């Protein structure tokens, strides 16, 4: 029989161990889980997750990834482009890039490749148009293994200042199962690299 008074400390430890081992499975699992969580917290497991690190690439360098490889070439301010400005006195912020599809199928989401960051007065985050440098036609479909030189256009309000340098982010996507449809799809659009490009003013002098 156990539980008599004046037991040595070793006996108490054994008693505790016995009590733990005889706990119901449910209580044991909860207890172990809470212990693991607490220990991970000590080692930073509960710290807020930092955002993904963005690689900085130089102009002209190819940043490889899925579903496209991208090399940023230049950034310009234009007053004319194949697309008409919504407001006649605004200007175009144009970014040149060579884009090559690395996915296994033609892609229509060309407007998702780049975004310009930290530029005041842009009418939209998404480019107003993307066109092929070779013939100025809209680039709404790109094909695997066929790299194309493209110009991405953003309209900037006339009242906003023209920066000297702009940050251009290259976006990527991941191919995974869409939990809603159950189908394989390109999702999780997120920036994966950036470049700082000097802005060349190519407007006609007024």
């Amino acid at each position, binding site marked *: 029989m156990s539980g008599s008074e004046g037991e040595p400390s070793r006996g108490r430890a054994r008693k505790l161990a016995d009590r733990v081992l005889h706990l119901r499975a449910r209580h044991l699992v909860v207890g172990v889980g809470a212990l693991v969580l607490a220990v991970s917290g000590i080692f930073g497991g509960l710290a807020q997750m930092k955002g993904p690190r963005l690689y900085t690439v130089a102009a002209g360098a190819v940043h490889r990834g899925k579903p496209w490889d991208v090399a940023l070439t230049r950034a310009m301010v234009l007053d004319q482009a194949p697309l008409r400005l919504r407001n006649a006195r605004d200007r175009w912020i144009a970014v040149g890039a060579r884009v090559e599809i690395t996915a296994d199928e033609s892609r229509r989401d060309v407007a998702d490749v780049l975004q310009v960051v930290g530029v005041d007065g842009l009418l939209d985050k998404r480019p107003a148009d993307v066109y092929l440098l070779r013939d100025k036609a809209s680039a709404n479909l790109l094909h695997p*293994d066929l790299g194309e030189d493209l110009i991405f256009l953003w309209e900037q309000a006339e009242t906003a200042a023209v920066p000297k340098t702009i940050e251009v982010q290259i976006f990527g996507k991941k191919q995974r199962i869409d939990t809603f449809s*159950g189908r394989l799809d390109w999702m999780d659009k997120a920036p994966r690299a950036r470049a700082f490009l000097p802005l060349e003013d190519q407007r006609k002098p007024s």
Partner: protein
Amino acid sequence: MTEPGAEGAARDAGARRSRIGSTALVVAALATGVAITSQAPDTDARQRPFVRVGVMGEPVDGRTFQGAVVAVRGARRIARSGKTRDTGGVWVIVRARAVARDKPTSIDHASVRDARGRTFLATMRINQPLVAGGYVMQPGISVEGDIVFEVPQASAARLTLRLADSSDVRMDAAIEIPIASDGPTVDRWLAEPSALPVEDARVVE
């Protein structure tokens, strides 16, 4: 007072066997479930199109229409609607003949697949004469026209054409016709400097 040792041990052994048996049954059920779901086709496989494969020159039934490949040409440059377009790869122009079965039908999916399994949709750099809204076919009236693709040079010699009446080919009929040529033919296409004209679709008499 403790219970007689033999009875208690037998009862404990029985309870242990029962627990082991239940655990084994649960594990077996889980394993069976995992085996079944791992073998079952995924959503993309379940919703794949019903493909009818044909050969060049012969009509293939695509449920709402019949399609056939008449000829394949290629070029470095093409001309359409007064504009010339060049490419960093090869223009592949498929001359196809199609007829709707019993209601107005358009070919809204046109693609080629290369030997590596990559899919190239019909180009949008020109207004396509026959596909992608270019032509709505009336039943019983055969129409012939070009379908234009832009592919890398390395892919151009071995392609498989796929046509369907809907841009979403899931669980619907699609026709596939291999349109293989060869390396020297592709080189000949690329060597030709003049632009190949892409004409409007026309009724076949």
